């Protein structure tokens, strides 16, 4: 379960202030914001720019560079499917197709019931147990269609 609260500028300001004076604070702040709110909304950009004395474009460049930073809240759960070569060689592509069809959601999208957001990821370091995935931060190896369906069903139920 993604444990996040609704966007609140005053809370964001608190998080940012917590990093005052630290060098290279942009990424730690962005991580903390995403941990708190589940995403980094566009409204956060001017706050960061002001606090770090950078331009809004500077911050936008950083946020958009990292795929992990979302600009929309995710579903209740977050499923990362590995798209790297080792997983592809043992059926990762088909599994990915299956997941997309099953959820009715493309990469970076959330199933219409709001249960799951599907994200691609490039190598979880689990090549020996490919195909691999990660659900809400828990890695899962030796995935097949049945296990994937079970994971999805369970996630939907929670």
């Amino acid at each position, binding site marked *: 379960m993604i444990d996040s609260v609704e966007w609140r500028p005053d809370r964001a300001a608190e998080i940012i202030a917590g990093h005052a004076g630290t060098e290279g604070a942009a990424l730690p702040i962005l991580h903390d914001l995403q941990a708190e709110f589940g995403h980094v909304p*566009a409204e956060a*950009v001017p706050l960061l*720019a002001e606090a770090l*004395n*950078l*331009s*809004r*474009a*500077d*911050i*936008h*460049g950083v946020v*958009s*560079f990292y*795929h992990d930073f979302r600009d929309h809240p995710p579903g209740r759960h977050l499923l990362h499917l590995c798209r790297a070569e080792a997983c592809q060689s043992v059926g990762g592509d088909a599994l990915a197709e299956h997941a997309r069809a099953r959820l009715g959601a493309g990469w970076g999208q959330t199933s219409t019931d709001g249960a799951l957001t599907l994200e691609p990821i490039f190598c979880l370091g689990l090549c020996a147990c490919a195909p691999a995935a990660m659900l809400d931060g828990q890695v899962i190896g030796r995935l097949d269609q049945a296990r994937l369906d079970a994971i999805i069903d369970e996630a939907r139920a929670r």
Partner: protein
Amino acid sequence: MGLIKEIDFGTPASTATTLVELTIDGFAVQVPEGTSVMHAAMDAGISVPKLCATDTLDAFGSCRLCLVEIDGRAGTPASCTTPVTAGMVVHTQTQRLAQLRRGVMELYISDHPLDCLTCSANGDCELQDMAGAVGLREVRYGYEGENHLAATKDESNPYFTFDPAKCIVCSRCVRACAEVQGTFALTIEGRGFESKVSAGGVDFLGSECVSCGACVQACPTATLMEKSVIAAGQPEHSVVTTCAYCGVGCSFKAEMRGQELVRMVPWKDGQANHGHSCVKGRFAWGYATHRERILNPMIRASIDDPWREVSWDEAISHTASEFRRIQASFGRNAVGAITSSRCTNEETYLVQKLVRAGFGNNNVDTCARVCHSPTGYGLKTTFGTSAGTQDFDSVDHSDVILVIGANPTDAHPVFASRMKRRLRGGAKLIVVDPRRIDLVRSAHIEANCHLPILPGTNVALLSGLAHVIVTEGLVNEAFVRERCDLAEFTAWAAFAAQPRNSPEQVGLICGVSPELIRQAARLYATGGNAAIYYGLGVTEHSQGSTAVIAIANLAMATGNIGRPGVGVNPLRGQNNVQGSCDMGSFPHEFSGYRHVSDTATRESFAALWGVALDDEPGLRIPNMFDEALAGGFKALYVQGEDIVQSDPDTHHVTAGLAAMECVVVQDLFLNETANYAHVFLPGSTFLEKDGTFTNAERRINRVRRVMVSRSGMADWEITIALARALGCEMNYANPGEVMDEIARMTPTFAGVSYEKLDRLGSVQWPCNEAAPQGTPVMHIDGFSRGAGRFVITDYVPTDERTGPRFPLLLTTGRILSQYNVGAQTRRTDNVVWHEEDVLEIHPHDAEQRGVRDGDLVRLASRAGETSLHARITERVAPGVVYTTFHHPQTQANVITTDFSDWATNCPEYKVTAVQVSPSNGPSAWQQSYEAHAAVSKRIADPAEAAE
């Protein structure tokens, strides 16, 4: 005449003095240490293919086109990021390199539209040139793969478009915005194939972009392109000229198609701007062909009559007969003239000659009266020369920069970019300003201390700084002993040390903490090379001259004079403020700041002009209005100024003008002053005439005509015609001959000629036998007056005080997109950034008055009242409000008073006690003024007029 193309060396020049020798393609090349291989090759005339490199930006090494082979080194390093080493043997063209480059180019072109024939950059596209240079003949990848060709154009900026479909993501625009302009409004969004240039995820107009044009200039393709080029096509010839906006004096290439101006491009060899520009000079030139330009002379008997268009002959002879009639009835001194800081040196010189030799009096003044006259007075008193001490390049050598009463990012943007670059390079910054201007804190720069003093307390603050320097032993005694008058210094030091000047005492007056004052003083005195930059926030006060003197005192006391990186730098408002002062357009001075009572100077002019000259100073601008109201001043010739809008206390100005019998306005448009005029002489824009402007660093720059005068007469020709009609002979075939006379008659200009300006690009006066190439930094071996002179600067509060009726202090200023009275910029697309003057007010003051953001408010002072919209902001301190004076609908100067500098009468624009209250409509003045303006601006139908 062709298109001027500057050589692009690819990377900036190295400033090292040690030379390194290497071989490039078999040629021996000697370059300074630290030069890139690419730059060294170009020095030898060898052009290495490149896309992401350009010599205004640091090397980046991303495009992979400039690869070279170097003997003894593995691989193919990028020539832009590889510095030269002694004995290096470089090959820029080999079979291997050709294949690599062609392969790289194939990748670029596989994701680029193939619409070269209909592309706006056709004829000026580096991508196309490089495709040719590498011999691209096919793209093996095809064009069907994933691409960006369907990306949508961003046309939100009024002056240029951003077409991401044509972008090769070389980052030149992003780097130009950061390195050159210092705004950081652009970034690369995303990564990998998804990388694209972005104005921060929003459109350009909604972004932090200030529309300086640096990105457009840096773009090697049609991705960022001037809309004027898209509309017209590529220019065919260019003429180098000087911008007619602020006192930075940027050099531009006017790129033309016949008589049509296609675009203004900052000239890389321009010694003031080094190839950079701002939104005004770069883009806001459309006023030259605006439909409201008046192109025919006009006259009328009364200011309530409609204008009647007449021939030049009739207009000139009518004016001359009116001036003679008035002088016959009311005396020789009943007429005068005002010169303009927007006109050329030559034009200004001719107007003062017309007054002195033709009118037979000294009633000539210039708009510098209302901006930098205290600079002339203060710096002449202390140093001996009425001008700033440095060139702009000097800032590169500063360790500490003190900005007081100036807002460079709005008013002198190109210099501000330079200053910000130095700040990012490590210089420390002190800002003294009632407002939190952008320099106090904006992306990548932050002032080490900001002293938000109350308006009107500069002198007290400067005394506080002096106190710390004197009492904490921070005086540079060796400098003072060697360069300055010791007795005067001793008296000054004793004054500065008095307890009433301590930070604890002056802090109470200025409203800032004593500790902040001490910190600023210590930083200025001990931080290395310290330079002071100041603007109208220093001069436009009842103690403007005192503040300039106090600044000079600080610089002398700390030895910060006479070398690069230091000095006292007035940031001049208009393009030719320095020049109009130099040219003798003050009522008490001939050219070169020589008093009219100086017999030798006066007699030399009398001999040259063949007339006797008055040895008594004439009327200053404010005195002209006073005299007019007293009945003794009846006719005024105003060249290129809009005194109704720009001068303080509008009621007084308009009453004075209305009391005159012949007001002659020479301008591009029916400005506000023309509402009180009897003769209108249509002037010419800077694009339509030859001449020179002198910028804030004393640099004399050439203005070159790029199109014929639309009204038929350049301004200098109009003055000559008027002089001749008055029987004052002026024989000049061209402005160059006027400059020859100026040089002959003015010691500091003795070495100036158009031939020299053409040869050297520009020169900074003094330019004479002692300094034939001009003088970038002054007072190097001693002050021009001999010993530097310390003057005691007692703080005397202004008589303009807040009280129960007027509890707030109004201070006025400028904004980036508009210029002065706005006559030019309001007639361009710059209005998208600033369509009206607004009143900045602190949330606390707004709440007390029930004012919400965007509300219409009444702004009232003892002098008058107006209505405008409020903007609630913490940029201003509680108790202070701020507005601009760019729009005649607001007329901020209805509010300002007739208080002025004790020495020079420079008006106290920066301090007016006001009250702000909610309003539901324009003030009575606005209504009556608008009604009069509507009547007065009418032009009679020619058919009707003939009846």
